[in-house]
């Protein structure tokens, strides 16, 4: 399958601080991929590099096979971009902004935008600068839907949104990708929302890609194990983020359930009770990256 986004040996520094080194990943067509990572792992940096808004220290990045620092107008037409914080032109009202964007996109689907705007309950003359964050997010979303791009890149869509607007956003996105050949690359710091949405997970840790797997696989295979061992358990390579708080230990693993339990038992002196749990995506994220 053709990769829509491809990053090769991406390295970036802010000053002397290394964001990541030799980052490699590629995204397939037709999927919603979530870019997850804690603050400062370079999510927005990656989005910026992808759109040519940042020159990486080294490495290459391609979208639709074109180097990201010089995307052709044709390719830019195929990409819908949501900036962090739903940034839009504050001086426009909702009619003006539609008029502005419509003239750039030949396949502009006006009805998508106005359908969403009807629900917003704002007057046509209200400036975007005077709208709430939730209303602004809907304007931004409406514009993206009307553009009807092949690839949506959304930087922290949930920022500043209350649950209702978040859910609305997700519902529309889901409808959007139902059409053929639509791909979405999305970051968010509220991982709960992503669970409902994303097909693939790309998890960044400081300086590297921690994991890139389908969400389903992740959710079915990644398990948490808890036991009261008074700190006796020493985690090996197959266990993640083992942590003991007041004698109770938590650890995570991709191992099949039985094998994991066997391995844990081998390392424990006494036959403690081991509780294993399936996890939400948020728990998985914490299991993989740790709480700190």
């Amino acid at each position, binding site marked *: 399958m053709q990769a829509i986004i491809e990053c090769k040996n991406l390295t970036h520094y802010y000053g*002397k601080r290394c964001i990541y080194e030799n980052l490699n990943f590629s995204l397939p067509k037709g999927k919603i991929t979530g870019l997850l990572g804690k603050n400062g792992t370079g999510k927005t940096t990656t989005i910026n590099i992808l759109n040519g*808004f*940042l020159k990486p220290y080294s490495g290459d990045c391609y979208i639709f096979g074109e180097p990201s620092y010089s995307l052709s107008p044709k390719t*830019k037409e195929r990409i819908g971009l949501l*900036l962090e914080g739903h*940034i839009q032109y504050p001086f426009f009202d909702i009619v003006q902004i539609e*008029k502005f964007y419509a*003239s*750039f996109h030949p396949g502009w689907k006006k009805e998508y935008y106005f359908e969403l705007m009807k629900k917003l309950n704002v007057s046509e003359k209200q400036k975007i600068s005077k709208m709430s964050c939730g209303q602004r997010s809907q304007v931004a979303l409406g514009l993206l839907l009307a553009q009807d791009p092949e690839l949506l890149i959304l930087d922290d869509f949930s920022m500043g949104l209350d649950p209702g607007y978040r859910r609305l956003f997700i519902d529309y996105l889901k409808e959007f990708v139902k059409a053929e050949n639509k791909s979405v690359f999305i970051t968010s710091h509220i991982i709960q929302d992503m669970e409902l949405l994303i097909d693939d997970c790309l998890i960044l840790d400081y300086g590297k890609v921690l994991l890139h797997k389908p969400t389903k696989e992740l959710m079915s295979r990644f398990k948490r194990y808890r036991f009261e061992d008074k700190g006796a358990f020493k985690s090996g390579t197959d266990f993640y983020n083992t942590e003991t708080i007041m004698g109770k230990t938590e650890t995570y693993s991709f191992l099949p359930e039985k094998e994991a339990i066997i391995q844990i038992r081998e390392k424990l002196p006494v036959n403690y009770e081991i509780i294993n749990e399936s996890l939400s995506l948020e728990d998985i994220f914490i299991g993989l990256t740790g709480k700190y």
Partner: protein
Amino acid sequence: MIKAFFYKEWIKTRKYFALVVIIGLILEAYMFLKLGRSFRFAGYEHLWDVVINKNQFLFSYLKYYPFWAGLILGILQFLPEISNFRIKLSLHLPLKETRIIFYMLSYGVISLVILFVLLSGILFLGASHFFAKEIVSNYLLTTLPWFFSGLCGYFLFAFCAFEPVWKRKLVNICLSAFLLYFFFITDFPAAYEKLSSIIILCIIPLIGITMVYYSIYRFKIGVQASYR
């Protein structure tokens, strides 16, 4: 598509720019009222004498107006683009980036040129009513560098404002101040009459435009101090 860009810039700047235009018109109206007063007080022949033989320039009020007009338009147009990196929205539009910048700058240049032509036109008509053509052309030549300073104020603001690295921003500000100084070196009427001066007057805005592209490019790719 250029229409859409002009529409956007127009919505962004129209109210304040209208104010700038009105101030300009008031300024000229004031100058002509004052001129009329001088004629009544000093007499026509005497005022002509002062203009011809004492190198008096009667429209000095106009001196820094074009510069401020350009600078303010620059601020109105570019500050919203810089805050929150909003220019990314424009640069992401399905056009070549150089063209996007060109359209944005065209709006500013065309607005300023329309304003300046309007003001010069009023100046020309008004001055022609009172003065011989030799005086009128001398006066228009005197205001020429001031109007050019307006265009440059506009470009050089963008040149300084978009520059992402602070140290370089200071360098840009010094350089801009130097380039703008050229328009205000001397107050002597029509001192910029020589071809060499006119050529420099024209070159500085061209430098200004080039520099805007450069600064926006650096802004876009997020140039940092460490590797400048």
